[in-house]
Structures are given as structure tokens and as C-alpha cells.
């Protein structure tokens, strides 16, 4: 076999195991991190309950999906969950608003310091955590239906004659497309609409926003609607791509916070950037490069070990490492957000 075939194989290998998974995982983290960053920008606290909000939204989607399936409703090649998503977003938004009105608004009227809000959000996190486990249980649930693959590894091999296969799941494409649409809609809203601009003004300078007659309660309400919608979308896309498990969603909080801080907290664009940075780092650091090295060295050099920086069990160490590095070297984040 000539060297160019080896290089092509190496490229396919990296695309299949690093590039495509990173883009879909990165998009999911980005959607979560944008929600965290928006809440931080407007309400000025780090919302620890965001991961649980994702879990709650996904749970609602699963219940509605099951109900649709039991009635024989489906979307053909697309997952039924997409049909359930708008209803789940509505329910999660309602939950977020109820939590804000009953818990966070109490501290807002008292003008409590941010750390009080953070601790209150930890309480909300545990509450939702329990609620989700009571309602749907702790087991892993796969709720994906419809067509699984757009490109199958075997078919790709046959088509190209390469020894490495490339698989593209429908959920990966769906994740990326829906994330792009959601982010574009969000930016259009923030840049072009009256309410969106009011949100940016409020985040920029609260006192001056009040002097300009911007209604703070309305801004807060809209922020929760957006945060809950994005959390549900992120949770459902993650669950479709992999599976739903309450514990995993609880763990997602760390890479999401890392993404928000890496990008510059309070900066939506930074959160998106941060999502991809964290996803790429995590997947690259836990990928075994053995085969890749064999291909690019044309078989001359084959490492004995797996050439893997970290086993996948340690993938959260990557988020921690990035978090610590950013806070040490550039605490404002890549896009100069507020310092936490």
C-alpha cells in the first residue's frame, strides 16, 4: 500500500474518532454554556442548577416521546423526540420561571450578594436532581428512534476502498444543525430586537439600564425562558446522541462551566468557543493515537502502548485542567468576559 493511502486512512481515523464526536459534543456543551453565561450576565450568579435543568428538560422530552410513540405518532427517519422537544421546552421554561419567582426573586428583592444566589442554586440543583430521579429513575434510557446512521462505516469502506471506516450518525448532524440554528436565532435576538438589546444593556450596566426605564423583572423573565430552552435543547441533543442518565447530566455541569469560563463568562460568543475548546481537548486527550501514528509513519513506527494521554474515565480531569489553566493565565477568558 502506498503512503498516500496511509495518510487518507489516518485522516479518516481522526475524523471518525475525534473530529466528528468533538463537533457534536462541543455543540452540546456550547448550548449549555451559553445558558450559563446568559444567566451570569443578567442575574450575576453562576447557576449550578443548569445541568439539572438539562436533565429535567430531557426527562420531559422522554415522557412526551413515549406518549407519542404509544399513540403511534412518529417522524419517520427523524427521532420522535424532536416532535416532543417544543412541549418539553415549554414545561422546562415554566419550571425555571416558577423556581425564579419562588426562590431567586426572594434574594433579588433583598439584594443578596452573588454567593447567596450560588448557594441557593446549589439547593435548586439537589432538588431537581431528586425530582428527576423520582420521576424517571436512575437507569440509562435510550430514546432515539428513526434512522441511526447517515453514513455507515462498512458502506464507507466499500465505497472508498480504505481500510478505515467513517460513520456519521444522524444525531451528530442534527446536533450541529440545530445548535447553529439556535445560536443564530439567539444572536439575532440579542443584536436586533428591542428586548434583546435591553438584555445586553442590563448585563452591561444595570443602574443605567434602570435609569433608562428598562424593566428588570422582564429582562430576568426572558433570560430564564432562553436559558431553559437552550438547556432543554442541549440535554435532548446530548441524550439522543448518547443516552439519558441523570448522573451523567449532573457530571456535565463541569465541562459546561469550564466552557463558559474559558470563553469569557458573560460572553455568549465566548461560551460557544469554549464549548468546542473543551470538547476537542477532552476527546483528543482521551483518544488512543496508536493506530494513527502507525498510519502516518507508514507502518515504520508502531508504539507499544495505546498512546493515550488519559483513559476515558479521567476525561473530567481535562475540564479541570483547562479551568485551572484559564483562571491562572487569563482569568477573564478568551473573549475578555467578567472575572468571576
Amino acid at each position, binding site marked *: 500500500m502506498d503512503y498516500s493511502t496511509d495518510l487518507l486512512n489516518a485522516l479518516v481515523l481522526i475524523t471518525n474518532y475525534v473530529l466528528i464526536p468533538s463537533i457534536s459534543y462541543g455543540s452540546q456543551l456550547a448550548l449549555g454554556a451559553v445558558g450559563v453565561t446568559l444567566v451570569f450576565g443578567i442575574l450575576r450568579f453562576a447557576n449550578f442548577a443548569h445541568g439539572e435543568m438539562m436533565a429535567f428538560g430531557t426527562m420531559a422530552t422522554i415522557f412526551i416521546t413515549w406518549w407519542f410513540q404509544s399513540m403511534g405518532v412518529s417522524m419517520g427517519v427523524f427521532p420522535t423526540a424532536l416532535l416532543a422537544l417544543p412541549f418539553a421546552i415549554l414545561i422546562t421554561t415554566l419550571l425555571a420561571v416558577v423556581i425564579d419567582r419562588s426562590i431567586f426573586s426572594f434574594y433579588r428583592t433583598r439584594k443578596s450578594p452573588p454567593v447567596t444566589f450560588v448557594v441557593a442554586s446549589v439547593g435548586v440543583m439537589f432538588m431537581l436532581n431528586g425530582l428527576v430521579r423520582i420521576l424517571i429513575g436512575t437507569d440509562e434510557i435510550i430514546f432515539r428512534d428513526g434512522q441511526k446512521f447517515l453514513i455507515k462505516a462498512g458502506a464507507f469502506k466499500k465505497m472508498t476502498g480504505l481500510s478505515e471506516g467513517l460513520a456519521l450518525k444522524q444525531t451528530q448532524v442534527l446536533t450541529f444543525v440545530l445548535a447553529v440554528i439556535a445560536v443564530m436565532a439567539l444572536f439575532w435576538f440579542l443584536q436586533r430586537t*428591542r428586548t434583546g*438589546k*435591553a438584555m*445586553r*444593556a442590563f*448585563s*452591561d*450596566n444595570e*443602574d*443605567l*439600564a*434602570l*435609569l*433608562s*426605564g*428598562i424593566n428588570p423583572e422582564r429582562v430576568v423573565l426572558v433570560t430564564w425562558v432562553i436559558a431553559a430552552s437552550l438547556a432543554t435543547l442541549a440535554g435532548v441533543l446530548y441524550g439522543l446522541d448518547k443516552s439519558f442518565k441523570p448522573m451523567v447530566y449532573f457530571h456535565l455541569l463541569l465541562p459546561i462551566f469550564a466552557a463558559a469560563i474559558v470563553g469569557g463568562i458573560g460572553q455568549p460568543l465566548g461560551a460557544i468557543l469554549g464549548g468546542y475548546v473543551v470538547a476537542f481537548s477532552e476527546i483528543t486527550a482521551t483518544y488512543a493515537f496508536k493506530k494513527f501514528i502507525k498510519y502516518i509513519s507508514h507502518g515504520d513506527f508502531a508504539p507499544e502502548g495505546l498512546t493515550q494521554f488519559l483513559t476515558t474515565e479521567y476525561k473530567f480531569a481535562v475540564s479541570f485542567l483547562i479551568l485551572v489553566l484559564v483562571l491562572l493565565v487569563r482569568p477573564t477568558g478568551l473573549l475578555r468576559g467578567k472575572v468571576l
Partner: protein
Amino acid sequence: MSYLIGEKLTGGYGGADIIKDCTLSVDKGEIAVVVGPNGAGKSTAMKALLGMLNLRGGTVKLDGRDITGMSPQQRVAQGMAFVPQNKNVFVSMTVEENLEMGAFLRRDDITETMEQIYDLFPILKTKRRQVAGELSGGQRQQVAVGRALMTQPSVLMLDEPTAGVSPIVMDELFDRIIEVKRSGIAILMVEQNARQALDIADKGFVLVTGENRFTDTGEALLANEEVRKSFLGG
């Protein structure tokens, strides 16, 4: 009776009283300037007029109506505009967006008002797509005044508009403020640059330790021997 009047205002931020029996007033088409040494309670007296202070005594009247019980936001809706000394622009937003936010309460067409502000501050028109945080100090002050004028207020209150700008920019800003006054707006201004401010003032208030010491026309205060010696440096 004056258009805006705060009579015998007494109060502070919760602890001791910072202003005592302090009276300030301004009429439409008039510039009133509040001067005095550091810590005299100049800014505090102005904030009392806007309702940003816990008042223990005194009343604030706008156009004859008692507005003492209103929140700052309600007073803004009643036609009072305020330019704070610090953080008076949205630094991450463009000049045009700053002006739009100023007009947030208005539901009618704001393009005409915006044109008027661009006529008043031509530099803002050329910089209207630029982020306010990137502007010079003087240009930022123009954005801040422009933002406040977007509500088409009847009273404009300025807290040290010339703090930190060069003397040339200061003269320029004062010229613009006179222009605003001629359009029939009442202007109340707290100033460190007492001499220059009294020069353009129709009315001046000299505050010392939260109390009125002298109240007269700008001209008379500048001519007053005692005021000159104690507060204007001779």
C-alpha cells in the same frame, strides 16, 4: 415657583444625614449649578431630587406636583433625565444602541430625536456604529448626555459632566449644554470646575456640609467676595 424644586431636603444613604434642609430649584430654559467643596453633598443633593436617597424630610415637586414618593424609574418616565458621573454609557454597545436604550420608554418614532442629537453632537453621527467603550472621555460624555436626552426630558440633571476631560473639551461640552438649555430644558448640574460652571449658570447653589451657604445668580456669586475667596480660589 420653580419647575423642579427640592425643598428642605434632609437625608442620607441610611446612616447619618448627608444633606440637611437643603433646597435646590431650577426652571425651564435655565441652568442651575451646584458647587461646593469636596464632601459637601452636591451629588447627594442631586440624587435626592431623583429619588435615589432615603429622605427623612423635605419634598420634591415637579411642575407643581409632589413626586417625593416616586421611584427613580417613575421620575424618569415623568420627564426627568439623569447623567451619572461614572459608568454613564453602555460600554459594550454601539453609540446608536446607547441612544436607542435611552429612548427605551418611548413607543413612538425616535429617528427625529436621534437626528437632533446627531446635530448637537456631530462626532456621534460619524461614530454611531462604534462601541461606546472605545470612545475618548469627551465623546463618552456626549454619548451619556445624548442617551439622557433621548427621552425628550423636561429636566436634565448632570453629575459632574466635565470630570476627567481636558479644558478644551470642557468648553465644548458647556457650549452644547447651553444649546440644550435654549431648547427649553431645565438643566441642573453639579460641577467641580466651579468658576467655569458659574460662568454659564443662571442660578448657583453653594453647598457646604450638606447645607445651602449661598444661593444667587451665577454672575452675583462670581462677584461675591466671600464666595470667591472660599470656593473659587481667590
